[in-house]
C-alpha cells in the first residue's frame, strides 16, 4: 500500500492556506454563535496529540473556541453526536455541528428518520476537498496519494442546506474512482468467486462492532443482532454469524447509508465494508432513482413503493 502510494501524485489538492481560512471561519462562527447564545455547544474538531491528527471536540465557551480546527485529518462523522453519541452533549441545549458533505448526508437521513429536528441543530457546512485515508502518510498534504478512497468519488464536496458555509473550493482534480473500479471488478466475478472474496474478509471479523459503533444510522436502542429471543444473527465471531451480521447490516443501511465509510475506517480488520454499502446505494439508484441523504426525504426507497416498480425478477 505504501509502495503504491509513493507512485501516486503528491501534489496538494488544495493549498494549506485553505485550511487556515476554514479554521478561522469556523472559529469566528463559533464565537458568534456562543456569544449570541444561539447555541450551547459547538461540535467540531480539535488537533490530536499525534502529528497531524484530529479529534472530535465539544466546545461550550468562547475561550475554548481556538481549539477548533479543520484539516484533512478531520475524518470523523460528527453526525454521530446527534444520535448515538448524544449522551455526551445531552442537556447542553442547541448544538452547532461542523459538517462535511458526507456528515451532512447523514444529517439529512437522520432528519428523514425523525431522529432530530432541523431547528435543533445549527449546521456549519464545510466545503471539503476530502480527508486522509486510513493508511495515509500524515506527513504529506491531502493529495492523490493520501486521500481516502470514498473521497475520490465524493459528490457532495460543497455543502447544501446548511446555516453557514465555510470555504470556497478550487476546481478539484478528477481522481480515478478506485471504489467503483473495485465494485465493477467484484460484479464481474462468478458468484463463487465473490463468495470466496467476502468469506475471506468476513472470516477475519472479530465482531468488535466498531462498524456499528461509528455508524450514524446504527442508532437502534437494541440491535437486532444483539437479540437472543429469537437469535436471528449469531453473536459469537464465527464465520456464519459474521456473514449474517454484515449482510443484515448492509440490508438495514440500504437506502439510508450516507457513504461516510466510517465503518470501513473503524474496522480494525480492514474489511472493505463500504463496498457493500456502495453496492446497495448503486442498486437502489438504478431501481428507484433514489439517492440517500441528498436532502431530507419523507420516505426512503424501502419504505415506499410505486405500483409499477420493476418486478422482472418475480415470476
Amino acid at each position, binding site marked *: 500500500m505504501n509502495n503504491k502510494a509513493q507512485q501516486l501524485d503528491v501534489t496538494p489538492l488544495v493549498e494549506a492556506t485553505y485550511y487556515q481560512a476554514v479554521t478561522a471561519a469556523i472559529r469566528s462562527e463559533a464565537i458568534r454563535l456562543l456569544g449570541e447564545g444561539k447555541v450551547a455547544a459547538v461540535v467540531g474538531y480539535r488537533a490530536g496529540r499525534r502529528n497531524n491528527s484530529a479529534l472530535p471536540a465539544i466546545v461550550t465557551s468562547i475561550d475554548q473556541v481556538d481549539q477548533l480546527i479543520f484539516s484533512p485529518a478531520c475524518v470523523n462523522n460528527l453526525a454521530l453526536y446527534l444520535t448515538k453519541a448524544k449522551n455526551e452533549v445531552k442537556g447542553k441545549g442547541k448544538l452547532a455541528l461542523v459538517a462535511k458533505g458526507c456528515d451532512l448526508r447523514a444529517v439529512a437521513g437522520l432528519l428523514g428518520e425523525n431522529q432530530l429536528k432541523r431547528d435543533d441543530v445549527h449546521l456549519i457546512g464545510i466545503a471539503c476537498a476530502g480527508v486522509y485515508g486510513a493508511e495515509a502518510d500524515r506527513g504529506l498534504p491531502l493529495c492523490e496519494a493520501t486521500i481516502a478512497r470514498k473521497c475520490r468519488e465524493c459528490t457532495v464536496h460543497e455543502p447544501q442546506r446548511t446555516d453557514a458555509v465555510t470555504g470556497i473550493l478550487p476546481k478539484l482534480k478528477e481522481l480515478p474512482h478506485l471504489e467503483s473500479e473495485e465494485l465493477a471488478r467484484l460484479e464481474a466475478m462468478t458468484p463463487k468467486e465473490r463468495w470466496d472474496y467476502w468469506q475471506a474478509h468476513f472470516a477475519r471479523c472479530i465482531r468488535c462492532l466498531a462498524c456499528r459503533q461509528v455508524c450514524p444510522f446504527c442508532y437502534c436502542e*437494541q440491535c437486532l443482532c444483539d437479540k437472543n429471543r429469537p437469535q*436471528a444473527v449469531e453473536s459469537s465471531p464465527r464465520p456464519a454469524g459474521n456473514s449474517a451480521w454484515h449482510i443484515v447490516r448492509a440490508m438495514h443501511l440500504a437506502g439510508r447509508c450516507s457513504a461516510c465509510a466510517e465503518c470501513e475506517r473503524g474496522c480494525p480488520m480492514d474489511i472493505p465494508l463500504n463496498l457493500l454499502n456502495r453496492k446497495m446505494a448503486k442498486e437502489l439508484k438504478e431501481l428507484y432513482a433514489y439517492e440517500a441523504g441528498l436532502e431530507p426525504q419523507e420516505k426512503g426507497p424501502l419504505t415506499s413503493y410505486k405500483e409499477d416498480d420493476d418486478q422482472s425478477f418475480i415470476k
Partner: protein
Amino acid sequence: MSRIGVFVCHCGENISRTVDVEQVAQAAGALSGVAHACDYKYMCSDPGQNLLKKAVADHNLEGIVVAACSPRMHEKTFRKAAASAGVNPFLVEMANIREHCSWVHEDKAEATAKASDIVTMLVERVKKDKALAPITVPVTKRALVIGGGIAGIQAALDIADCGHQVVLVEREPSIGGHMAQLSETFPTLDCSQCIMTPKMVDVANHPNITLHTYSEIEQVDGYIGNFRITVRKKARSVDMGKCTGCGVCMAKCPQKKIPNNFDRNLGTRPAIYVPFPQAVPNTPVIDRENCTWFKTGKCGVCQKVCGPGAVDYTQEDELIVEPVGAIVVATGFELYSIAEKPKGSPIKGYGEFGHGNLPDVIDGMTFERLASASGPTGGKIQRPSDGKEPKQIVFVQCVGSRAREKGISYCSKICCMYTAKHTMLYKHKVHDGQAYVFFMDARTPGKGYDEFWRRAVEEEEAVYIRGMVSRLYQKNDKIVVMGSDISVGVQVEIEADLVVLATAVQARSGADSLAQKLGISYDGYNFYSEAHAKLRPVECATAGVYLAGACQGPKDIPDSVSQASAAAAKVMTLFARDELEREPIVAKVVDRYCVGCLACKKVCPYGAVEEKEIRDRQGTLLKVVAFVNPGVCGGCGTCQATCPSKSVELDGYTDEQIMAMIEAL
C-alpha cells in the same frame, strides 16, 4: 411451554392413504415438549373434537397441534374446541398434512417424512405461541354518508330510521344527485322527480339526519367505530337559518346568463341560485365566480332585496368535526366526455365524433334534460343548434365503454337500458320521428329489462342496427352517421337531426383523492374496491367503510338502492353492539426499544401507526416512539419486517414463532 398435544387426523383415508399417520403421531410423541400424541380417523367430527377436549383435561395440555387439513378449513373448529376445554385458541396450530402433503404426493415414505417435518415445525411454533385475547373497540353509533344521490339518501334514511344519527355530506348545493336530473326511469317509465323528491324531503325533515350540503370531506382520522371526520362547509353566502326560500333574490339577480350545469348547460341560471326548483335545502347559493359583487364589488342587489337579510357576502368556509363510527361512501359517477383529452391521458377522446364540437351531438344525460318536463325545453325534444324538433334521431351505444383503446375496457351497464328508454320517450313526444340505435349487444339482464328493450323495438319501432359508428360529421344542418350493419354486412349512412351518445359511466374525478383520505383502495379506473367481489360486496377492505352505488362501478337505480340498503344493514350490524371485537393479530410496539424512526409508520397501509410521547414522571419528554392503534391495524406485519430493531411485533406471527419454525427445518 412444555405440555403439547399432537392430534394426527386420518381424514377418512384422505390423509392415511399416503401418510402413515401412526408413524407421524409416534414421531411427534418423541418430540421434546410433546405430552400427548395420537391419531384419529376424523378429528373434525364430534368424537374427534371430544377426544381433543378429553386429552386437554387428561394430560393438562397447554398447546395443541392438529395435523389435518388446511387451517383455512378447520382452524376455527379446533380453536373453538380447545377454547371450550380451557386452552387459549391462539395456542392451537394446524399442521396442514392434507392439502400440502397427502393430496399432492404419492410416495408414502416421502409423504410421511414430510408430514412429520410439518408437525415438528408446528410443534416448535406452538411452543412460542402466546395466549391472545380478542381486541375490543368502543363504537360511536353515528354514521357518515358521503354523497346525497339516491344511494346516499337511501343509506341515510335506512340508518336514521333504525334510530341512529346520520351525517349526510353532499358536494353540490342540493341533494338529489343524478337521479334528480333524469326524466323518467326504466323499466317502469315512472317520473324520476316524482319518486325522488319525497325521499329528499324525508331526508331534510328526518330528526336523525344532519345534512351538510355544499360541503366536502376535508380529512378523515380514526378507525372503525371511532372516526373523526372534518367537513368543509363551503361558503354559501346565504344564511341558511334566515333564508325562507322565497326566491326573490334569484328573480332580481341581474346576472342571468350563466349556463345551467344542472341542465347540462342547455339553459341558464342567475348567479344566486338553487340548482332546480325542488332542491333540498331550498336555500340559494351564490356562485362567486360569476357574481358581479364578488367580481367587481358592485351590485349587491340580492342583499338589498332579501327580506330576512339572509344574504351574507362575508361568509367563509367553515370546518366542522363530526365523530362517527361508520362511513358509507356513495359518491356516484360522472359521464365520459368525448372531448379531446390532454396529451398523455390514459382516457382518449373521440375525434371521429368531432371531439364534442358538433352541437347536435349530445350525451344521454343531456337528452334526459331535453325530455324532462322540468327541463330547459319543458320536455319538448328540441335540438341544441336551432331548436328544431329532430325527425331522425340516432343513438350510439358503447361510446367510451368496452373500448380499451380509448382507455376504458368495462361495460357501463346502464346504457342499453337507458337508450331503449330514450327511444320510447322520443317516440312518445315526436310521433312522426324515427329513432335508430347503433349497438353491439343489448345487455338487458334484470327484472323486466329484456321485455322493456323488446318493447322499444317491437312496439315503439326503434330501429336497432347491430354495428358501431365509424364517424360523425356535419353536412349542412344534418349530422351524417357513418355506420355499418354487420348482420347484413353493408354500410349504413343516416343523415340525422340529432345524435345521442351513450357515453361511458366513469368514476367521479377526484375519487382517488377521497379514497386516499379514507384509506380505501380503488381500481385502475378509480372505482372503489370492495373487500370481496362476491362475499363482501358492500364492505371495503378498510374496516368500518362501506360502499353504495356507482362509486363502486356502473350501476342502475335499483342496484344502487339495494346496495345502499345493504350498506345500511352493515352499519346497523356494527351499531348493534357497544363494543367491537376483532382478531388480535395486530402489531405492538415495544416502547423500551423503539427509537421512533417511524419506518413502520411510513409503510403501514392502514395508517395505524401514530407517534407517542414517552415522558418521565416530571413530564420531561424522553422520546417519541411509534404506537400501533389496534383498532386500525390490519395485521399485515409489514411494519415488523421493516423495523430495523424489531421493536414492533405482530402478535400471532412474531419473529420467535417464525424463527422456531425455521430452526426446526
